């Protein structure tokens, strides 16, 4: 029958807390200036946003999705999808952060370990 704690738990939780502390330390050591965000759909890079600009952007190849860019952050402002998880998730602003939409296979992320690349033209909508 079930027992809440057993001797092996000590090692399990000690290991887990160690891994958590280490992975957060690694995560917070990524402190490059954020200048761009990459939009991939079905594994293809569709667009590269310049996060130093400000405004609302719609991509022709991705109808129904509007992006809002400003002050080093980006969010999905509007999407026609059913569950709206990508919209409710809010903005991303740090290297490695991402917004994903599983049904539409959309991946929007701020690249890490990479100097800013020249963004392609911005289509403001």
């Amino acid at each position, binding site marked *: 029958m*079930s027992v809440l*704690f057993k001797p*092996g*738990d000590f090692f*399990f939780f000690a290991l887990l807390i160690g*891994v958590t502390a280490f992975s957060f330390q690694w995560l917070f050591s990524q402190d490059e200036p954020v200048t761009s965000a990459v939009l991939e759909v079905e594994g293809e890079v569709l667009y590269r946003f310049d996060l130093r600009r400000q405004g609302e952007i719609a991509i022709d190849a991705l109808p129904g999705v509007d992006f809002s860019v400003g002050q080093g952050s980006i969010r999905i402002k509007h999407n026609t999808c059913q569950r709206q998880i990508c919209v409710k998730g809010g903005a991303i602003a740090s290297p490695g952060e991402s917004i994903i939409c599983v049904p539409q*296979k959309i991946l929007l992320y701020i690249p*890490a370990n990479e100097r800013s690349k020249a963004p392609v033209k911005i289509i403001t909508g």
Partner: protein
Amino acid sequence: MNEAKRQSKLSPDEQREARIAGLIVIGLLMFIFEAYLPRPVPWLKLGLANIATLIALYWIDWRAATTVTVFRIVIGSFFAGGFLSPGFFLSLSGGLLSIGLMALMHKSGIFGILAVSVAGALAHNFAQLAVAVTILFDNDVLWYLWPYMVLTALTTGGVIGWISHVLLRRLAADFESL
């Protein structure tokens, strides 16, 4: 205590089937209830349906827990939509790795239910992330979610493990084991 336990007219096999069926229904109800709860980010979920899996694992066996998990995911996808969709395979991979690890830890006998439940949540998150990184999105950037997933698995797995523990105690008091 024993006198108070309910006597069943069913054979052990029939009892087993009835318990599995009941746990599938409970898992489904939890899954549907949870679908209505707000989710701030797509990967953050309490995992209420895992209560049914944990109970099946401790109350019956790992085969029953696997059956409960697979049926819940398949039937759940009929309700919520998305049978055989990318999200369905995310759930299935998470569910199967989770039950595999939980069964091994349970069998070892050296871990309590809280650790087993947290490990299940971790395995679930890890499998989903691995499938998302390698198959769905093919982009390593998603591994950056991992530290947050470890932290949430620790909390949600702990809560689910505790709830399951309370329910299992209750079941042990009320029913004869198979």
